[in-house]
């Protein structure tokens, strides 16, 4: 079973998403929550980096945090999946372990 990584800070504010990307293994899952959901938007400076990451990892975004900040599924990169809090719980249960990048 793979690891679930959560990232909660915006990649434009802090390095934590980058750190997560460099230290998450292939086959692992990354869930963007809180301000980190902003990293999932189309057309940002990190879009290419995330698109590349998606070839070996599963990337999710917490839908309610996206909506809270005024965005919807239509605004995020293709390939990033949206989950709600139930989905968040399921991801935690389905992965062997979980690490938060703060």
């Amino acid at each position, binding site marked *: 079973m793979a690891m679930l990584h959560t990232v*909660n800070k915006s990649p434009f504010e802090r390095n934590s998403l980058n750190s997560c990307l460099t230290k998450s293994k292939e086959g692992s899952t990354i869930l963007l929550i809180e301000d980190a959901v902003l990293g999932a938007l189309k057309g940002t400076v990190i879009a290419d980096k995330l698109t590349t990451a998606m070839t070996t990892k599963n990337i999710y975004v917490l839908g309610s945090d996206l909506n809270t900040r005024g965005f919807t599924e239509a605004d995020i990169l293709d390939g990033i999946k949206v989950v709600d*809090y*139930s989905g*968040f*719980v399921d991801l*935690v*249960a389905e992965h062997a372990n979980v690490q938060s990048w*703060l």
Partner: protein
Amino acid sequence: MKFTLLINEGPYQHQASDTAYQFAKAAIARGHEIYRVFFYNDGVNNATRLAIPPQDDRNITENWAALAKEHDMDMVVCIAAAQRRGMLDADEAERQGKDAHNIHPAFRISGLGQLVEGGIQSDRLLTFGD
């Protein structure tokens, strides 16, 4: 599954406590158990009984208290972090010669060992912080 949630930030200042609360509710609804919620660093401030947030906004402390009561959740405030930040229950206040106490009764004060024990006894431990 049993979850232990570690909350490292105070109410309103960061979203950590809100996210953890929503997660806890969803986990319970999915049939899981919240083994313990542990408040550390500024997270101890979630346990204040004196907060008066605006009427049209959520009351984070009372939200936790209600959830804990409904589901018999163990909510622990780290004593070392609490003392540093002036969060005292009645016993601590008396022991330390302070003339007031401010911990909401839904929370109990205990040591860091409770966090480690939570990690040992739970299936998953999540950190909510900054």
